[in-house]
């Protein structure tokens, strides 16, 4: 399938989930763009030879950056933006196929889909955690002063 169509469907998929999750109207457009951005990053990384893990990792890094930037610009929790941005990446179909193989006793399928799901999930989670960690580190003072009780 052409890259353009994939990007279109990814954007529409993000928009669909944003609507389903009751996204306030002013966030709808930028949130769908987040889906376009992550899938674009994924395609570009894959095109440049990145494997499943790395491509998802890069896409998640870009998606999370987008979410953090939009959260600050629009004064809203980053959650709204990263959940919608990651919609095209989430391993929904491979998770399903993993369990389908398990239920059907297809051990080859179980292994390959299972590994696929694992790599995608780990890639996305690593991307989110990296950006979250960096932001926490550079954010002004440590927030938790030593707590003292009476």
């Amino acid at each position, binding site marked *: *399938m052409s890259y353009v*169509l*994939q990007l279109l*469907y*990814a954007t*529409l*998929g993000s*928009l*669909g*989930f*944003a*609507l*389903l*999750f*009751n*996204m*306030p109207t002013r*966030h709808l457009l930028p949130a769908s763009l987040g889906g376009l951005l992550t899938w674009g990053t994924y395609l570009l990384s894959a095109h440049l030879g990145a494997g499943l893990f790395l491509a998802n990792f890069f896409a998640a890094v870009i998606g999370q950056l987008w979410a953090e930037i939009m959260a600050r610009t629009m*004064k*809203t*929790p980053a*959650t*709204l933006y990263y*959940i919608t941005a*990651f*919609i*095209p*990446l*989430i*391993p*929904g*179909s491979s*998770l*399903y196929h*993993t*369990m*389908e193989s*398990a*239920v*059907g006793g297809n051990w080859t399928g179980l292994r390959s889909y299972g590994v696929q*799901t694992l790599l995608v*999930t*780990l890639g*996305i*989670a*690593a991307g*989110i*955690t990296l950006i*979250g960690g960096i932001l926490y580190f550079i954010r002004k003072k440590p927030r*938790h002063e030593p*707590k*003292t*009780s*009476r």
Partner: protein
Amino acid sequence: MQYDPKELMPLFMDYGEALLASGGEVRRLEDTMDYLAEAYGGIRVDAFAISSLILLTVDFGEGGVHSISRCVPRWNGTDFEKLELLNRLSRTVSRAPLSPQEFRAELDRISQVHTHPVKKILGSGLAAGAFAMFFGGGILEGLLAFFFGLVALVLQFYFAPRMRSRVSFLFVVSLLSGLGIYALGLTPLPVQCDMVVIGVIMLLVPGIAITTAVRDLFIGDTVTGSSRLMESIIGAAAMAAGYMLSMILFAGGVL
């Protein structure tokens, strides 16, 4: 001590429960409990939460030490509008504490927020249709997935309050929507049923849940992460069983 802690603590719990119920992360909840309690004069705040339980102990100094816990329903939906309003409320409060009455009134107003049905219908149809085509279906599969996305939504409305566990709910919804989709194979329409199925699956499959579960594991919320991870895997298995059963019923000529 300006306000009575006995009044404040249940308020914090109501806030926390609302936050989890609208899709807020456990880490966000714990942080917000710190902000809120400190805004109302807490000297030391200990907040701990997992996906189904919130624990909070606040030392108010002269006001004494107070503890409260709250069990919350396991099935957390996602409502971004509520999440945004709740976040705004906590920011307002940490700048200048509201009186408990005002705080309560704000919470009540936020709990009135509901998704417009048109938004839900359009959203699930669009998501299912887009993913049917994303995974290789044509326009026909996209349109059918749009329709069956709506069917899945109606089934969710009906079964979600009537089922005790998420697993049985996912099994039933998958089985019924699967029966509908594979019945299309009996019609003369040139439909790739699998593409329609995958579009609808994307609506229900805990793909977001498994991703955030692993994220929770990475940032150290191990209990929440592991329980959500297992829930997602078992949920996906229930869905697979439902769809495979519906496929077998047709392929085997039972129906």
